[in-house]
């Protein structure tokens, strides 16, 4: 089961802009973030301001960290941004 | 005793031809751009040419003054090097220099200071080649007061004028 992850901002310097991630049984956002945090060598936390979208919708509007992922889902990680 | 390259300046030999400005800008900018030359010749009064160039003061007040640590001293050549990425163009180094020798680059506004061309200065080559030797390189002993050579051009010009014209020199500048 594979999801596509797009990464924006500073995290992209650690993970690249776009990656395909293989996940095992019953994959959730929580599991994905743990996997990516390990890979990035930095903690990726929703309560730390990182916005996580699944197929364009914020995970907080779905099931939070327990949001289930399906094959082919697009996950986007956005930094807390403040420009303008 | 350390040996480094230092540029001696002999104002009375300077004819104002400005080959040095051409050579410097060609080397650093890739084109003839006297406004961006690190060595600048001023002529406050006809016949009175002042060579204005970093003297690598022993205490490097410019480096000391920079609030963003964009200036440092090259270990080998002892020249001042500017990190253009860090420089914010604030002008503190210019203020700190007793002769106001650094300037803000006409292109990007960053502090611009002679870097001795890495140890083989171009300006010296053309001046010596022309036979003037108003500037020439020496391997200098460290205990010379460099600050004598970092003075505002008008002050230097006054001294030169007095040299050339005697006391009348003070009237022309």
């Amino acid at each position: 089961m594979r999801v596509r992850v797009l990464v924006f901002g500073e995290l992209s310097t650690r993970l690249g802009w776009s990656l395909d991630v293989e996940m095992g049984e019953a994959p959730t956002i929580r599991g994905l973030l743990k996997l990516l945090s390990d890979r990035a060598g930095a903690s990726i936390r929703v309560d730390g301001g990182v916005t996580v979208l699944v197929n364009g919708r914020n995970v907080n509007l779905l099931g939070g960290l327990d949001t289930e992922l399906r094959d082919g889902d697009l996950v986007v990680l956005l930094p807390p941004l403040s420009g303008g | 005793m350390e040996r480094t390259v230092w540029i001696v300046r002999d104002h009375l030999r300077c004819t104002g031809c400005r080959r040095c400005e051409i050579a410097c800008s060609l080397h650093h900018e890739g084109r003839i751009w006297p406004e961006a030359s690190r060595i600048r010749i001023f002529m406050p009064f006809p016949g009175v040419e002042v060579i204005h160039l970093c003297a690598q003061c022993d205490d490097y007040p410019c480096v000391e003054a920079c609030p963003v640590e964009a200036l440092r001293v090259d270990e080998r050549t002892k020249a001042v090097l500017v990190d253009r990425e860090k420089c914010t163009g604030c002008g503190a180094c210019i203020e700190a220099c007793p002769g106001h020798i650094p300037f803000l680059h006409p292109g990007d506004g960053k502090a611009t200071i002679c870097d001795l061309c890495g140890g083989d200065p171009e300006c010296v080559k053309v001046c010596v080649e022309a036979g003037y030797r108003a500037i020439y390189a020496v391997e200098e002993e460290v205990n010379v007061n460099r600050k004598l050579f970092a003075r505002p051009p008008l002050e230097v010009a006054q001294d030169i004028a007095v040299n050339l014209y005697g006391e009348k020199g003070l009237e022309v500048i």
Partner: protein
Amino acid sequence: MKGWSGRLLRVDLSKGKCVVEEYPADLAMRFVGGRGFAVKLLWDELPPGADPLGPENLLIIAAGPLTGYAIPSSGKLVVASKSPLTGGYGDGNVGTRAAVQLRRCRLDAVVIKGRAEKPSYLVVEGDRVEIRDAGDLWGLDAFKAEDKLLEEHGRDVGVLLIGPSGENQVRFATVVSQRGRAGGRPGMGAVMGSKNLKAVVFKGDEEPEAADPQKLRELGREAYREITEKPNYDFWRRQGTMATIEWCQENSTLPTYNFREGVFDEADAISGSTMERMVVKQRGCPNCNMICGNVIEDAEGVESELDYENVAMLGSNIGVGDLKKVAVLNRVCDELGLDTISAGNTLGFAIEAAEKGLLDIDVAWGDHEGAKRLLEDIAYRRGEAGELLSLGVREAAERLGGGASDFAIHVKGLECSAYDCHLCPGMALSFGTSPIGAHHKDAWVISWEISSGRRAEYIPEKADKVIEFQRIRGGMFECLVTCRFPWIELGFELDWYPRFLEAATGVSMSLDELLTLGDRVYALIRAFWVREYGGEWSRRMDYPPRRWFEEPLTKGPLKGAHLELEGYDKLLQAYYDKRGWDERGIPTRETFRRLGLESEARQLERFVELH
């Protein structure tokens, strides 16, 4: 006084008189500087009801006690006046050498009134002030005019000037500097033009003496180093604010087709990542080490300095999906001295009006050549469309009729900047309550709102957050006059600022006092609006555009989203309650008293009853 110079310059262009005077220490203690000085001076000295484009209006240029010192991002000043676009308080801030040079003339502010008989410019050189003839500058675009001034007065002088649109008093003409820095969205450039004032040149030699110069220098050094060590510093240096394009696209907040949608098909082509591959140089404000001006070569081969607002408003908002073409429009606005945000918004309005058969112009979505021609018509007020659109979307819509006001995207007459708020009530509140009309500078809460995961809700915490940001960004930073970016973009801590202030001035103001300053300034600005609008003032002026309530998004993952009026009503009420403003949005007597504005309140009572 230390830190503050204690001096301001008064210029009367009608009489040709320039006088430097000392201002009372009380002004500095209560209002600190920048926007604080501007609103207080305007309150005290501008006759209510004055014509913004008449000689009575005051143009104020104000710095603060930190401006110009070698501390992070202190090279900014505020330009302010009564706005010809909105009829209320208008200001902006500009990052420019002029900020540093103004302070090196040992001046904290300049107050300009009257009108010169013929095109003129001001030269402020140390203690000498001259009004000079600008005959050979008038008519030149802002780039050429500035080049001439730098040739004449020296490369290191600071210049504030206007382009042809300011000369022609286009309502959203700004004050510009250094090829792309600009400020005064609500027509401060038009005010300058109405005074026949082409430029102000500053050249000084020494900043006001600091209370503890050694300490200030040390703090500055530490601060600059601290900034470069922040985790986001390197990425910021790569894209500046342009990273916001992708962020907004992903969150459906990128203004598209006149704020009809929040996603743009060609967002990638105008994104920060695309820009990175084209950058030819970077430019920044004086004393800043996190420079954010990224320069590319536009489609005509000319350099153009980009940042998020310009690119979104002149790109996705009008359907131009090619960064080099957007850069042409951006550069043309800078040359003409037009606010890029209002320009992009007005173009979007115009194209929609044409689509609906209300306006006869030959410009379509994505048509950057047509847009460029229209911008020039606006700057020169040429043709029916050029003349109409030069008035700003609120006025243009009113004159057009036919329901055009439904798609005039503004608050209080100032065109919204680049955040589509169909599903961002907090940001909508920010636009609604920004003190100059719709502008994001004061309370950029959209990132917090979306990260919070509760973007669809109308919770009072959002009102609290807007106020928090307004106090910091719209209050403290606008009065110290330093840039908010080190704090908001990189997390540079706010408690540096009281330390800078103490080293500069010897005065110890806690962070809390500096935030209360924000409340004071906001209350006085609100009083100014109410005094100008009188009986026409209503809380409706604090509402965001109708489109976000009544025309849901039709594209993207948030299709169907829209704001809810009842929800917004409650949010606004929570805002008023927290601020101590009554249900009309006017500060109560008690609030004025608490903020030390009793005499201003009494003056306001001649115009409106206070609760």
